[in-house]
């Protein structure tokens, strides 16, 4: 049913709110990609089955005609605590159940839905302490959710629920109570900066598009999140798609644009599905399309699916890809604000940036700018991964220290001591302990000054068993493969740097290799055409800066201090510890271990393929990696 005016929006909002209140209990099952992979949809269906078999009225969709009390059963967006998935939240108590299995469903319904007790064994515990409520869990405690406030708290596929919790009121405000200038001023004063990596002031960007005289303009949302390990944008598109749409509608109003495109990678099928549904629902309700809420303002959004090229996250490559051309960045000027999509003035922001727009419009610039340090307002979402105890999606105020993120929220380093953190994806840098980076404030400017970047917000924690040369090599391999191939420094240069890094990890490196890497990095950084090339060598440059000893160990001593580079390590048997049981010799696939029973065995290094099977097999820790 179409909502024709803004008064009608208020009316339906109250209806939906009432309907939501009638759901005396709600079960929110995380339906983000991670938990879905863990079986959360099966859990959802199982609970539905159980509820139905017990004749408990359950709403999978919000019923807005008046009805009796019921239990709401919802597929929500990502709760963030992915390490502990599948996650299930019971409202209104705010209980969070972790690592839920299908077998647990019966008990959950029995105890928490029919009864009023938590299932204790499913509650998160740390250091022997049980945390019943999600908000009390250390992982959540230090977080501030602004962009992701609805993720995990409402049904991700329901426009009604989104409206019920206040959705589209920012759109209403922008359309009826604000001029383009007002909106731009609000966003500028809030200090919102692009969350996609560059950190360009969003208000300024909108202003640049606003002043363009062209009649046709575009609002483009960059959902081409390509950093390995990053999933902030995906989570938002899957978990709160209407938030993104709202941000785009408001950007449209601010710049007098009437068409939007969401560029989302085809590898995010769930995001595509939820966004498509959200767009269809919004159109049906009249919140997209002609004359939204009778404001006279038209705005519609299309989805354009990318084919998975990392470089298509770059603005001009992205617009080229939407146009149906090869996704290759072009030289600037002219900038996207002047000649973007279809050569028309274009606002291009990433998903998270749009996600911040609605709360700023509702709560005001002052509220937003009070979060975070100067010039770095607001919150930022990070995908916390790697050797950290609590991986997942987090949102913290800008300026939170790395230490808080890794140790308080992330629960500390897994499998060893903290060594480094790689931030900002393949174009980001590595930060380390020695340089005092742990106390560093996570914001655009501080990170930049340390030779890293916030990027889109990938945060990979590494323990002391990580070889930093290998890390650099890994990322260089990624960028080398993902370079579009257009400009020489990036295409040929990254290939050469990778070649040199391969030499180093395989034991062929020399000091000249290091010199050449630095020389090449200099050219790649300064001479490349687009951001991908300009930042491609950050992982190498930063690791060479902070872990130079490790590089030197590789090229001079031919040793990998972390014991990771196969070519640089040897397996030997400590004759003191070896009992001569022959177990190692029996598991060795290469026949490299020989010896007499009850006497120390020996590894023939020329035959050894360094698979480590002997080490795993030895009961006496006699096999050593040197």
């Amino acid at each position, binding site marked *: 049913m179409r909502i024709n005016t803004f008064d009608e929006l208020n009316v339906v909002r109250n209806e939906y709110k009432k309907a939501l209140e009638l759901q005396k209990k709600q079960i929110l099952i995380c339906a983000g990609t991670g938990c879905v992979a863990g079986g959360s949809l099966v859990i959802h269906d199982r609970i539905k089955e159980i509820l139905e078999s017990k004749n408990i009225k359950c709403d999978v969709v919000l019923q807005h005609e008046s009805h009796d009390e019921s239990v709401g059963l919802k597929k929500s967006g990502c709760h963030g605590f992915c390490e502990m998935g599948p996650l299930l939240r019971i409202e209104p108590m705010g209980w969070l159940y972790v690592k839920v299995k299908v077998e647990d469903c019966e008990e959950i319904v029995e105890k928490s839905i029919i009864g009023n007790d938590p299932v204790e064994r499913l509650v998160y515990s740390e250091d022997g302490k049980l945390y019943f409520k999600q908000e009390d869990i250390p992982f959540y405690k230090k977080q501030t959710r602004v962009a992701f406030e609805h993720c995990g708290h409402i049904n991700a596929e329901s426009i009604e629920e989104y409206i019920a919790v206040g959705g589209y009121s920012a759109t209403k405000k922008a359309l009826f109570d604000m001029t383009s200038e007002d909106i731009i001023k609000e966003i500028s004063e809030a200090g919102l900066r692009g969350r996609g990596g560059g950190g360009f002031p969003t208000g300024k960007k909108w202003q640049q598009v606003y002043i363009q005289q062209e009649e046709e303009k575009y609002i483009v949302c960059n959902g081409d999140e390509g950093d390995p390990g990053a999933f902030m944008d995906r989570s938002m598109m899957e978990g709160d798609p209407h938030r993104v749409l709202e941000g785009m509608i408001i950007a449209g109003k601010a710049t007098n644009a009437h068409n939007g495109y969401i560029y989302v990678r085809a590898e995010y099928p769930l995001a595509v599905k939820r966004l498509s549904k959200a767009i269809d629902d919004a159109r049906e309700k009249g919140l997209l399309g002609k004359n939204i809420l009778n404001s006279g303002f038209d705005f519609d959004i299309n989805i354009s699916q990318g084919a998975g090229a990392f470089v298509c996250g770059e603005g001009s490559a992205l617009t080229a890809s939407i146009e149906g051309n090869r996704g290759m960045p072009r030289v600037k000027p002219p900038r996207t604000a002047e000649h973007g999509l279809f050569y028309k003035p274009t606002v291009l922001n990433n998903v998270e940036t749009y996600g911040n727009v609605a709360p700023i419009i509702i709560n005001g610039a002052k509220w937003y700018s009070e979060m975070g340090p100067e010039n770095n307002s607001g919150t930022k979402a990070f995908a916390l991964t790697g050797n950290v105890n609590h991986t997942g999606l987090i949102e913290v105020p800008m300026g939170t220290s790395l230490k808080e993120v890794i140790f308080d929220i992330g629960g500390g380093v897994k499998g060893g001591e903290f060594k480094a953190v790689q931030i900002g994806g393949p174009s980001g840098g590595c930060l380390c302990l020695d340089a005092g980076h742990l106390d560093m404030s996570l914001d655009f400017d501080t990170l930049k000054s340390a030779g890293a970047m916030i990027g889109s917000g990938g945060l990979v924690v590494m323990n002391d068993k990580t070889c930093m040369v290998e890390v650099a090599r890994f990322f260089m391999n990624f960028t*080398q493969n993902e370079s579009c191939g257009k400009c020489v420094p990036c295409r*040929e*240069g990254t290939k050469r740097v990778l070649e*040199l890094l391969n030499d180093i990890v395989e034991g062929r490196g020399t000091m000249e290799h290091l010199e050449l890497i630095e*020389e090449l990095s200099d050219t790649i950084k300064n001479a490349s055409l687009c951001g991908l090339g300009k930042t491609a060598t950050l992982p190498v440059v930063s690791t060479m800066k902070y872990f130079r000893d490790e590089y030197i160990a590789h090229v001079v001593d031919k040793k990998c201090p972390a014991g990771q580079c196969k070519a640089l390590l040897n397996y030997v048997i400590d004759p003191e510890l070896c009992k001569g049981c022959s177990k190692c010799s029996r598991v060795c696939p290469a026949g490299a271990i020989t010896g007499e029973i009850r006497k120390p065995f020996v590894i023939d290094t020329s035959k050894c393929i360094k698979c480590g099977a002997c080490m795993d097999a030895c009961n006496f820790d006699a096999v050593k990696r040197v």
Partner: protein
Amino acid sequence: MSKYMIIDGIRVEFDKEKNILELVRKAGIELPTFCYYSELSIYGACRMCMVEDMKGNIIASCSEPPRDKMEIRTNTAMLHHHRKMIIRLLLASHDRDCTVCEKSGKCKLQELALRFGLHEVDFPGGNTNNKIHEIDKSSRAVIRDPNKCVLCGDCVRMCSEVQNVGAIDFAHRGSKMIVSPAFGKNLGETNCVNCGQCAAVCPTGAITVRSDTKELWKAIYNPNKRVVAQIAPAVRVALGEEFGLEPGTDVIGKIVSVMRRLGFDEVFDTSMGADLTVMEESREFLQKLKKGDREYPLFTSCCPAWIRYCETKHPDLMKYVSSCKSPMSMFGSVIKKYYEENVDDEREIVSVAVMPCTAKKMEAARDEFNIDGIRDVDIVITTQELSRMIKEIGIRFDEVEAESSDMPFALFSGAGVIFGVTGGVTEAVMRRVYEDGSSKVLREIEYTGVRGMEGVKEFTIPYGDENLRIGVVSGLANAEKLIEKIKNKEERFDLVEVMACPGGCVSGAGQPETMFANKAKRASGLYRSDKVSQFKCSQENPVVTKLYSDLLKNREKELLHVHYHYNK
């Protein structure tokens, strides 16, 4: 006050320059580039044209508009390092068979390696060009060797932007990127029009014009073959460049002479063939006018690349394309017939055409261009190939005395000569249509707007009681725009001349490689030759008159016209 920039401390004023690079060159600094052509869109991929501003920012000068009072440097330690590194990187993955490369001596990469004094590839991985890409010899016009490609994209942009063909584009990513026809097909299997402009802009040997000189030498040295050649109008004003002469210098006499010394038995001038084309095309045009069939224009048919374009993109328009063969093929069939019927010689006739054009190689090989199995033209070589043949033998071109072409076809009109420049065919046809060779009328035609190197010329000329709408385009993208207007009924024309190469045949891909300015000089060269020609109009050429009363009598259709049967 005029605007200016400070480049390496020197004040350089600017006005219409679109980018800093043009200004740097204006300042007398030859900044190296691979991917910059003023005729093409800015690509910015080679990064050689970098300059540094006073804040130490590095800017690609090709894409940056000049700003008043901006100060830049083109020569700093950093820039030097980066430029050299880029050349090193390119060399490290480039084919190294320089000595036997078609482009050797004319290769931009080779030139820059020399300029930067690079004599070794100093990466530990060495040269990584493993020649994994197959050499594509499927096209009649060009040979594609992706192993020699530096991925500057000039060919891609030329093909799509100037020619609107898009037969080649980039495929794959990163260091695996190549320029290739879609789906890895061979060029010969695509809609490529064989214009060869991709080869003309290629800085290396990745796309080169197919050479047919080997076959030609064989024929020349074969005592059982009589090798008869014709030389296209545009060749005379360009070949001299290869031997240090000013662009536009008419060296037809020297060419005739030198070709005899190379071993050609007879040497003729295609301008004579062009005169026949004028006669036929004018007749066709007048007939069309008389019929009142004026919704669509008569399109000219001299350019084989245009024919191919029309066949592939606008097959519905083929019925409006003149049925005249090109001057080369008309002359080719006349030559073959002449020897067959009039000359008692046991030897087999080998008909050779020296052309500014690569598409002519394709035209000569087309099924339609033979009479009872006898090909109109057997071998087509380009201006460049001829220059190479001369160099191969070692004849000092500058010392060669001019000679005139052979009888019985030695006479030709100025109308035939100007076929080599855009608008030339139209002007020649008009001279015939007006049937008034007075200098007053000639001048009137000249000033209608038919001349000039612009890509699109539209004008109206009076004819009897009415006005004729004429369109002259060069560059197939320009043709496309005109066709669109015609199809949308926004414009109506009576005659449309299309030449695929921008500026006409003088800019053909078989010509010596050069900048656009030289092409305009070649065009002026042709107009000068027209000025001094004995006959201005084709109908005045006595050879033409003789042919019509003799050899061509009742055989015009058989010998001078063609029906294309394009089969996708």
